[in-house]
């Protein structure tokens, strides 16, 4: 092979390699900014799971009850909202969401009968969607079990993950653990009674919260569900969300999961 051929070959090879490296470095990843360049987490999921209420209950809330019904109130914004839920594991729900408690005539509803999901919008329009594909649910469960610590939150996608209502984090509390609990300092304050149920109270501070400077959680000892959470700014309560009533395993609710049409 002549020298000129070797040189041309090397240039082509070098350029191809350069393009390959550039492609790998730049095309496959977006620009990393200061906002996301360093991990904000102070706790790993494994460390948090060592706390029994988190490892044995909050990460398995869906497995800890058969059905529940309850009313959840959210305060602290211009309008207080009300959410009524009836859930039967693993794939049925009815939810009614009233965005403004002063105007109870305006509300959204959603139902999952295990085969189909319907959402009734505030003007009565019914929108059809699908329950989660079984394959997605399986993969979600597997990933949750094998999850490595990363800057990602995996939703617990079983058939009771709601499309409306603003209460998924309370019913699927591992979402709180993967985000707020990982970001802040955790302090287990003790046990008390809430709605005549035994609860564990946990406070998270320094968690880069968007509202307030600390957040308290009242966690049901039997199921791991968050029965109440409050955001504080110093000692002032700035936002809260809580079950006003809750009942587990009430068989009267079985007819509730009927589609709207």
């Amino acid at each position, binding site marked *: 092979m002549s020298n000129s051929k070797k040189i041309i070959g090397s240039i082509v090879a070098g350029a191809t390699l350069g393009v390959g490296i550039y492609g790998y470095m730049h095309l496959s990843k977006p620009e990393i*900014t200061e906002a996301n360049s360093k991990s*904000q987490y102070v706790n790993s999921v494994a460390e948090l799971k060592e706390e029994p209420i988190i490892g044995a209950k909050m990460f398995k809330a869906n497995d800890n009850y058969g059905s529940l019904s309850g009313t959840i109130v959210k305060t602290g914004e211009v309008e207080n909202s009300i959410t009524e839920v009836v859930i039967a594991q693993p794939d049925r729900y009815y939810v009614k969401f009233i965005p403004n408690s002063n105007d109870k005539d*305006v509300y959204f509803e959603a139902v999952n009968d295990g085969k189909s999901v319907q959402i009734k919008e505030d003007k009565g329009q019914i929108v059809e969607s699908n329950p989660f594909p079984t394959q997605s649910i399986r993969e979600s469960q597997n990933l949750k079990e094998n999850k490595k610590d990363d800057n990602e*939150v995996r939703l617990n996608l079983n058939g009771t993950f709601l499309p409306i209502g603003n209460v998924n*984090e309370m019913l699927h509390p591992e*979402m709180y653990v993967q985000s707020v609990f990982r970001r802040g300092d955790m302090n287990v304050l003790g046990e008390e009674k809430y709605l005549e149920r035994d609860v564990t109270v946990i406070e998270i501070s320094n968690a880069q919260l968007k509202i307030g400077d600390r957040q308290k959680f009242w966690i049901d000892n039997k199921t791991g569900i968050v029965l109440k959470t409050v955001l504080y700014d110093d000692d002032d309560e700035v936002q809260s969300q809580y079950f006003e009533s809750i009942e587990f395993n009430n068989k009267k609710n079985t007819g509730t999961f009927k589609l709207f049409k």
Partner: protein
Amino acid sequence: MKLRKSLVVFTLLLTLSVLSSISAFAATSYVYNGDISSGWWSSGVMNSTSSCGYDGKSYWYYGSSSPTSTGEWAKELNGRTEYAVYIPSCNSTGSVKYHVWYEDGQRVDLNVNQLNYSNEWVILGTYYGDSYSSIGMSNNLASSSSKVVWDEVRFKN
């Protein structure tokens, strides 16, 4: 002979390098808010900010009782794909409903309270993606005193 052999090895390595870069690119794709060429589409009013977002910028607007602002991130996908949305640290205090479109125009809806997440990817699940795949989000589940954000979306297969 020796030169020929090393040229073959070198070419193989190069091919491998190029292929791996292409596959890395194909395996994870992003749709950027505001970038129509990457698959972004929107309607209604949105404010833009350069103070937060996965790529340093994002769109946001106030909650409303009706969907006044809608954003959609679309991507032509092929096969099992993990869908994820990035929720930055600012302008995101409201509850939203993400519409996830997948195989043959099927859809699931997921309610996420953006207030709880800060500079985090929230994975919306794994679905079979095709040419109709997208994620959509409007501002109509959030209170008027809260803000909702449209930032980057990631599809990984």
